[in-house]
């Protein structure tokens, strides 16, 4: 089959690779219908996540058609059109059974690679480095899906592929960001980052009862979309003093809930950005926690910081004093796809949320490098590029 393979920093090529096969009894093989780029792929391509190898197939946000079924798969049939959660959960360990699917004990075959750094290994993820399982990703014609009964969800009739594909990762991640923020009636929610995940966090915050959502980014077209499609009040971080704006827009209180939908590769025009960039350059720091610092300062006393932007390693100069003395609550984590997807498919099916506007370009696999270039630079008004293998 054809697959989009990593060949080094920002070097993606379509290669012929062996077709996947059923390996374990709970596996299925899926013919990939659509597979989206994701912001966390950029961390791989830009070299911030170690343990990538040449030839790895990337991609983890996808929908497809079931073509082969392992002997212990009970719920799925050939021909089923399903959306698959990006993070693999076994369904049997204590974490999966308490709905913390991204903490699955069993789905990462390479758990030993993460343990020296993290202490304990999180779940395996499709196409997301060897430390997170070394599984083949979804930018390919076919993909093997382990624990398929747990990770695959039937797409309701009437829900378009273009909407369903984002129920794999962007929507559940954004929704979990809002869910963890513990939004109460009347709350003002601040969201950093207006990419697909940030916009899903905005829409989810409204679903969960937020009074106002203020969203921030540096890309004009994303701010436009956040304003027009997601109904947020928007601030351009390059033009506005964010701390002042958030304080004065909220009557001097500060936002109640702050969601970091940016993560480790934050970019800004502030001196902080160059400070972190320089530290990364000499390997004193892995991640640039610019958004995290801003959110801690901006958040009202006793508020909640919800982190869904991905961090990988170590960060520096976190204003812990502010966080501690203001009594902030921190919640964070990779999303629990299997917990949220059924509910989110309902939202999409009954028209409460539309996700299809996130899709800016549909491209064949062969244009993978161009798609990621668009996405990485956010040029050509790109929110998301989706491949149709």
């Amino acid at each position, binding site marked *: *089959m054809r*697959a989009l*393979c990593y060949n080094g920093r920002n070097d993606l090529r379509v290669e012929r*690779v*062996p*077709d*996947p*096969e*059923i*390996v*374990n*009894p*709970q596996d299925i093989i899926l013919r990939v219908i659509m597979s989206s780029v994701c912001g966390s792929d950029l961390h791989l391509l830009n070299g911030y996540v170690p*343990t990538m*190898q040449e*030839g*790895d*197939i990337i991609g983890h946000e996808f929908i497809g058609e079931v073509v*082969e*079924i*392992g*002997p*212990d798969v009970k719920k799925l049939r050939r021909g089923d059109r399903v959306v698959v959660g990006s993070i*693999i959960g*076994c*369904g*049997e*360990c*204590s974490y999966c*059974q308490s709905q913390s699917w991204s903490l699955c*004990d*069993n*789905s*990462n*075959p*390479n*758990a*030993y*690679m993460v343990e020296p750094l993290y202490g304990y290994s999180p779940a*395996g993820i499709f196409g997301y480095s*060897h430390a997170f*399982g*070394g*599984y*083949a990703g979804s930018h*390919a014609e*076919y*993909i*093997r899906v*382990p*624990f398929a009964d747990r990770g695959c969800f039937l797409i309701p009739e009437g829900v378009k592929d273009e909407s369903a594909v984002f129920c794999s990762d962007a929507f559940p991640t954004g929704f979990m960001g809002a869910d963890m923020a513990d939004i109460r009636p009347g709350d003002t929610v601040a969201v950093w980052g207006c990419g697909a995940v940030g916009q899903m966090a905005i829409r989810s915050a409204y679903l969960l009862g937020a009074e106002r959502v203020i969203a921030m980014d540096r890309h004009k077209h994303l701010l436009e979309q956040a304003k027009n499609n997601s109904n947020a009040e928007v601030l351009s971080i390059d033009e506005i003093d964010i701390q002042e704006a958030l304080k004065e827009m909220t009557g001097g209180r500060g936002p109640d809930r702050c969601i970091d939908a940016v993560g480790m590769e934050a970019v800004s025009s502030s001196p902080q950005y160059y400070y972190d960039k320089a530290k990364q350059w000499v390997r004193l720091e892995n991640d640039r926690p610019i958004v995290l610092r801003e959110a801690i300062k901006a958040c009202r006393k006793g508020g909640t910081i919800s982190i869904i932007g991905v961090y990988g390693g170590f960060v520096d100069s976190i204003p812990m004093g502010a966080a501690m003395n203001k009594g902030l609550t921190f919640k964070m984590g990779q999303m629990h796809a299997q917990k949220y997807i059924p509910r989110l498919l309902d939202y999409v099916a009954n028209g409460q949320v539309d996700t299809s506007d996130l899709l800016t370009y549909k491209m064949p696999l062969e244009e993978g490098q161009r798609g990621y270039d668009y996405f990485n630079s956010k040029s050509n008004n790109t929110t998301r590029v989706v491949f149709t293998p």
Partner: protein
Amino acid sequence: MARTANLAQAGVLDIAPVDPIPSGSSKINVGQNERWLSVGAGLLVANIGIRRGGIGGVLLTALGATLALRGASGYCPINDALGRDTSDDKTETNVLEISKSVTINKPREEVYQFWRKLENLPQFMRHLEDVKQTDERRSHWVARLDSENIAAKALPKVEWDADIVEEEENSRLVWRSVPGATIDNSGEVRFVDAPGNRGTEVHATIKYRPPQGIVGEAVLKLLNPAFKQMVKEDIRRFKRLMETGEIPTNEGPSGRKPETINPALRQPIQNTQTTPQQDTPQSQTKPSITDESIVL
């Protein structure tokens, strides 16, 4: 002072009361002076052998190497056969220890019973080829290194008999190898209810005596962290098999090249990928349990 991870010997864990009986090559039976003489003579003879070359040279080199090894390791099979022991004080190599635990989200009886059927162990213990229970207490164990590495291939299969010396149904097993094992070993596996309905804690402690005397001890002390990781991976596979009925893997033809580097051990991994079968009908697809190989 160096911090120890030998938790049973340090008394942190109350487990594995039995030490392996020293037998075979883990005994030291050559005295200190005799050892230095052996090393010296051996190196001299070996040196002559190498200079001479040819068949005589090979034989001399072999003799020299054997003498040098005898001197360095403190163990002489000829002395052992004659019952001759010229060693001074230290008569046994030290016991090395590995302790690892895992929590399995299944009832204690189920977890214990699966383990107690010793024939099941090679399903998740990577380096075990075969275990046979020969009578109620005794079992025969065969381990091998699944490696294409020439040095690893030259190593003999490691085989031993072990006796279960203490057993409490559904809670603990203590074993000890029968004298004459390639590597003298003992240990305990304990099965404890995890608090708050979290399933079963499995605590495993393995003790072993390095073969080949003090040289073996030095080498194995260096290798002990890698052995620890192997034990950890074994019980992790046990957990995965018990909880999910399969061992998750990224191997097999899954649409991408197999992993070639094992960063944990920085050693090349052998390609254990099965040959792709063409047009296998659904019903004949056998589920196979594979996992990446860890190479010494």
